[in-house]
């Protein structure tokens, strides 16, 4: 186990290097830069000085090395758009907002998805199963950018129950959480249902039934315990998606999270901010994957990593 962990951690660094190098090269290859979309075109002299000021006139490799050394000290340079802020500051301010939203949606997805999945599996082949399966499919196909505006129209503009946008109070949280989490709740429900049905084919489940355990106990104690494994595996990528991929929801509800920052940065070709955020996202994603693999070994005693 420890050896496996060390091996994975060793892979962490090269993986991060590849990702940063790729994103670094991509943003640099593109013509156009952070300075040339401003309203008044800059004189060549000013542009040259600006480039020199932010080391954009150096060879690519040197710029990349500069970025790497800075990144080691958590210094990703200044944002080229919002020049009074450093990239680190922007991430530090926006990431917690996205993290809260992501975690809430994560809880919502699990809290809604697991019971629905369990219910449909327990009622397999009856009408409740068919209707709920249809609901699950519709949930899986309802992206946040359809659900969010409809929720806003109905709940905030018609019924005036919840605020339509912004961030701060507890009532601001409800709509974005639902809009972000519903599609994942659908995926969890479906995954859990399939896995429950597959596990209940096992012989030890037959034994549990044969010795007279009530069905609810069989499902909860024996089937669900094993059937939760694929859900756990999926939790890693799901959490990563939720933490990093709430661009649209943040956009609709005007939430100052890192997703919104990233989209603006990509559109403005704000090199330093793009690369900084990609690095940040990559670290989250890789560590979550690692964490899930470790969790997997802890839950399922049959798995031993070498």
């Amino acid at each position: 186990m420890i050896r496996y962990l060390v091996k994975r951690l060793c892979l962490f660094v090269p993986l991060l290097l590849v990702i940063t190098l790729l994103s670094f090269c991509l943003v640099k290859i593109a013509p156009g830069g952070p300075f040339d979309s401003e309203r008044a075109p800059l004189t060549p002299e000013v542009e040259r000085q600006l480039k020199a000021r932010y080391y954009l006139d150096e060879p690519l490799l040197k710029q990349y090395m500069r970025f790497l050394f800075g990144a080691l000290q958590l210094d990703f340079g200044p944002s080229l758009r919002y020049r009074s802020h450093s990239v680190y500051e922007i991430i530090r301010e926006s990431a917690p907002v996205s993290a809260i939203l992501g975690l809430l949606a994560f809880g919502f997805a699990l809290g809604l998805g697991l019971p629905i999945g369990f219910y449909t599996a327990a009622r397999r082949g009856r009408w409740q199963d068919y209707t709920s399966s249809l609901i699950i499919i519709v949930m899986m196909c309802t992206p946040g950018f359809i659900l969010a505006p409809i929720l806003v129209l109905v709940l905030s503009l018609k019924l005036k129950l919840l605020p339509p946008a912004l961030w701060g109070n507890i009532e601001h949280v409800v709509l974005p959480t639902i809009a972000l989490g519903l599609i994942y709740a659908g995926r969890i429900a479906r995954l859990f249902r399939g896995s429950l049905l597959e596990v209940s084919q096992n012989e030890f489940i037959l034994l549990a039934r044969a010795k007279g355990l009530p069905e609810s106990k069989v499902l909860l104690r024996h089937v669900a315990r094993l059937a939760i494994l694929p859900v756990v595996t999926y939790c890693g990528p799901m959490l990563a998606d939720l933490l990093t991929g709430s661009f649209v929801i943040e956009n609709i509800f005007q939430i100052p999270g890192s997703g919104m920052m990233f989209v603006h940065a990509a559109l403005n070709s704000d090199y330093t901010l793009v690369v900084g955020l990609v690095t940040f996202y990559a670290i989250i994603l890789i560590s979550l994957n690692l964490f899930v693999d470790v969790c997997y070994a802890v839950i399922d005693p049959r798995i031993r990593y070498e």
Partner: protein
Amino acid sequence: MNKGSPKLVNADQCGSMEKRSSLGLFLANKPACLGAITLAILIGIVITWPIALKIAPLFGQEGQAFAITYHPLALSDDQFQAPSVKHWFGTDVHGRDLFSRVVYGTGISILVGITGALISLIIGVAWGTVAGYAGGRIDTIMMRIVDVLYSMPGIIVVIVLVTTSERFVGDKLAAIIPTAKTMTRFLTLIIGLGAVSWLTMARIIRAQVLSLKNLPFIDAAKVLGASHSRIIFRHIIPNVLGIAIVYWTLTVPSIVLYESFLSYLGLGIQPPMASLGSLIAEGVEQINPVKVYWWLIVCPGAVLLALLVSLNLVGDGSRDALETKRLT
């Protein structure tokens, strides 16, 4: 050689029987059939509506008026009309008929989904076949690359790819064909989406090729002196194509979803072209506390939902049919 030809006929018959049985399994699956019918209706409307608009002016005055009223880009003074008999989905901020715009948008979304998934199929099949067939160190390296790409944040890569390569590709394209400039966003979008969606396909195909290449008929082909490329193209790829196509049908809805997501953010299809995602985005822009224009969001949203649900049902149905057939 004499024995060769009757065998060929036999193989063909087997193939058609297998096809029939998977088709039968698919048809027995009611949700999948429902999805296929919905999809067929959607595609039918997408194809016939533009044709109707094209040929309407040939039928005198009324036809001309019809073609003008329902042209997806024709501006009019009827802004923000609620759905009615004349405008089934209402009209938008510029008085354009929303039904017509939704039909064209659905067409674009389907086109992006199909071609993007096709690109992912080509890359995935090529990558998986080469890795599985070559084996050894080449296989290890190629699959490690897939592992690395798996841990890249996909949607972020697409955003970086689309925003950066657009200007690059656009300039190059405009130098060759001056009119192609408007198509660049469309092309980079398809290529970008295809380029991040092939990983699962490559893994599935590789696993298939690994089990295929040890079967006797491959050995037979080798003994007969077939070259590697002949074995790959004549024997391996035709055998993995069925699975590849099934996973292709599962890739299409995810690419449609990605595309509408990006178009929603303004990173996808650009005006005057519209996809379902950008239509919903236009509707969201019109949200205000004074007057509610619900149809601007609900109509394209409902069509996107129907499209995604039917695509998913068809994809699931074909996968189930294939898997059941292989188990029995």
